């Protein structure tokens, strides 16, 4: 059996594949053409969502290909429909990064509300004496609005409510009021979230329905004192509208880990704003998450190649055939 590891991953997963006796080819090129050259002789691909695109052509040409295992959650780099048509499993590791993203979200919120990055820049610049300007606000007693209550959104809502004494209100089109946990108040629609929240955090996937979900109008509905956090996907928040809203004081601040285009342009207008925190799509990136993703993705490949049913299948239709 031969497996392509398409991007650098933690060594633990690669070792699992080798221990199984597979030939492992590590090609770190973001180029479908490179994948195409090898694909004829390959049984599985371990890929990162930000790596090379696993195109329809790659999937069609992969005569022996049984499984594409994603090191991460998002599968937008894989042509899922074609994979299903070809009977190829697409797997992901949905739980591996949950903890890291929850912690990052918590960090972004507390760094925004206490203006830690602005204060750090001022202190290093020798502006210690300007410190009276950096008046923060407390999270305790404030309202947190969570958009999208999947694994991450649920954890963020539950844990921040409990740990920081926040009121939490959530909205998710796939979760009815009766399915909400006790700690999170049910909001029927986003209007309610925009109206009551002091902090709004986005944890839904990027789909046709969520693209541009937060635009000019939505930002306008938020409190002027509100903070917006996006660690989900860049396209969900309209960046031009966000920049305008931040400049005009329609909201107080934002923390952004994901961008519409990645990598973002060097002169992205968000980078000039003081009331913003930007991190380079690293919310998920911890030693533990890398290890769990790498071993999780490898275990999925091993399960499929052994002829068993894998745990986290994105294209369930394949299992049903």
């Amino acid at each position, binding site marked *: 059996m031969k497996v392509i590891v398409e991007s*650098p991953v933690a060594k633990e997963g690669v070792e699992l594949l080798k221990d199984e006796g597979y030939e492992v080819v590590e090609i770190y090129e973001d180029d479908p053409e490179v994948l195409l050259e090898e694909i004829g002789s390959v049984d599985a691909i371990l890929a990162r969502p930000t790596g090379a695109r696993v195109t329809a052509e790659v999937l069609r040409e992969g005569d022996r290909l049984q499984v594409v295992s994603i090191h991460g959650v998002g599968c937008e780099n894989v042509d899922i429909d074609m994979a299903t048509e070809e009977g190829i499993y697409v797997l992901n590791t949905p739980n591996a990064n949950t*903890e*890291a993203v929850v*912690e*990052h979200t*918590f*960090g*972004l919120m*507390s*760094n925004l*509300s*206490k*203006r*830690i*990055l602005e*204060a*750090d820049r*001022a*202190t*290093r610049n*020798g*502006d*210690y*004496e*300007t*410190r*009276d300007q*950096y*008046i*923060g*606000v*407390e*999270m*305790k007693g404030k309202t947190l609005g969570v958009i999208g209550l999947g694994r991450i959104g649920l954890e963020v809502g539950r*844990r*921040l409510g*409990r*740990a*920081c004494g926040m009121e939490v209100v959530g909205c998710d089109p796939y979760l009815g009021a009766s399915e909400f946990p006790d700690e999170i108040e049910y909001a029927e629609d986003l209007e309610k979230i925009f109206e009551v929240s002091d902090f709004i955090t986005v944890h839904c996937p990027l789909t046709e329905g969520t693209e541009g979900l937060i635009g000019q109008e939505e930002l306008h509905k938020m409190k002027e004192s509100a903070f917006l956090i996006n660690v989900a996907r860049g396209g969900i928040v309209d960046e031009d509208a966000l920049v305008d809203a931040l400049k005009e004081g329609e909201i107080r601040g934002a923390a952004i880990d994901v961008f519409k285009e*990645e*990598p*973002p342009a*060097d002169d992205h207008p968000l*980078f000039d704003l003081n009331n913003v*925190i*930007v*991190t*380079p*799509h*690293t*919310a998920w*990136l*911890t*030693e*533990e*998450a*890398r290890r769990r993703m790498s071993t999780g993705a490898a275990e999925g490949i091993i399960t499929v190649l052994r002829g068993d049913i894998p745990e986290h299948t994105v294209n369930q239709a394949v299992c049903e055939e």
Partner: protein
Amino acid sequence: MIPSYIVEEGVNLLKDAGLEVVTLFDEPKEKVLEQLSDYDAILTRLTKITLYSDTLEGKTDGLKVVGVHGAGVDNIDVDKATELGIAVISTPEANAEAVAEHTIGLIIALTKHIVKTDKVTRAGGYEDRDQFVGVNLEGKKLGIVGPGGIGSRVGTKMAKAFDMEVLTYHPGEPSHTVPSEMTLTNNWEGFIKECDVISLHCPLIPQTEGMVGKEEFRMMKDDAYLINVARGPIIDEKALIEALDQGELAGAALDVYEEEPPADDNPLFEMDNVVVTPHTAWLTKETRIKMAVDSAQGIIDVLNGDQPEYIVNPEVFEG
């Protein structure tokens, strides 16, 4: 007398109680001290003046109460004040929530490289992101030095949020009840060696000055993080800088410095495994109101002959 700015909620409370309020925001320190005898009460911030024995002795005839707008009273010779029958009140609870939340922000800023990656991203370095591998807090050991109001808040929040194991160091019997989420220890060496994140929440007293120095940095885990939002001199700053340089710990976040304001060329400001804030952990809209109101109320209580809630030297009310 109010020598440095406080929010109007506190000033109004004093005025409503029928007190004459004089603000001296622009007066230099010496001028303020010269006039002390003319006042019944002074409501002061730590950064403006110090009231050591040379200031208090023989120069404070009319003074009945010093209200400190803050938690720490290390700018006041409390023993001398007690001897002179001057009540000292502070606002120990007012800033607790803000400081606890700041501490959490600093911890995650370090473990998730938030300050560093923000700088790199703004400079067009998005593609370097794979270098900034963080660590999860889940299941790690958090060490709280000083299980007081702030330390206990940080400990319980981190236990509830991330299931951290929380140890707390106190040399003797703590005056506060230690919350069930925290395990008390008086074994300093074991504490320093074991913890993944160490956060200081003790007052500055002779026993805590330089408490974290060369020895401690040698004993710490190489991947440990240190946070100081308490008082600068609790850490030997020179030893910290050396330890950071030599990788004896992974990083540090500081809100307080040996000298304040710190020198512009403090070597800490050049380090990228460091987060620095300008003694603003306490500074929130909510804290400013609580501090002004609590310290004003304390002054009113003393001048009315009542024992205030947050008295530092209750002895002045005995006998």
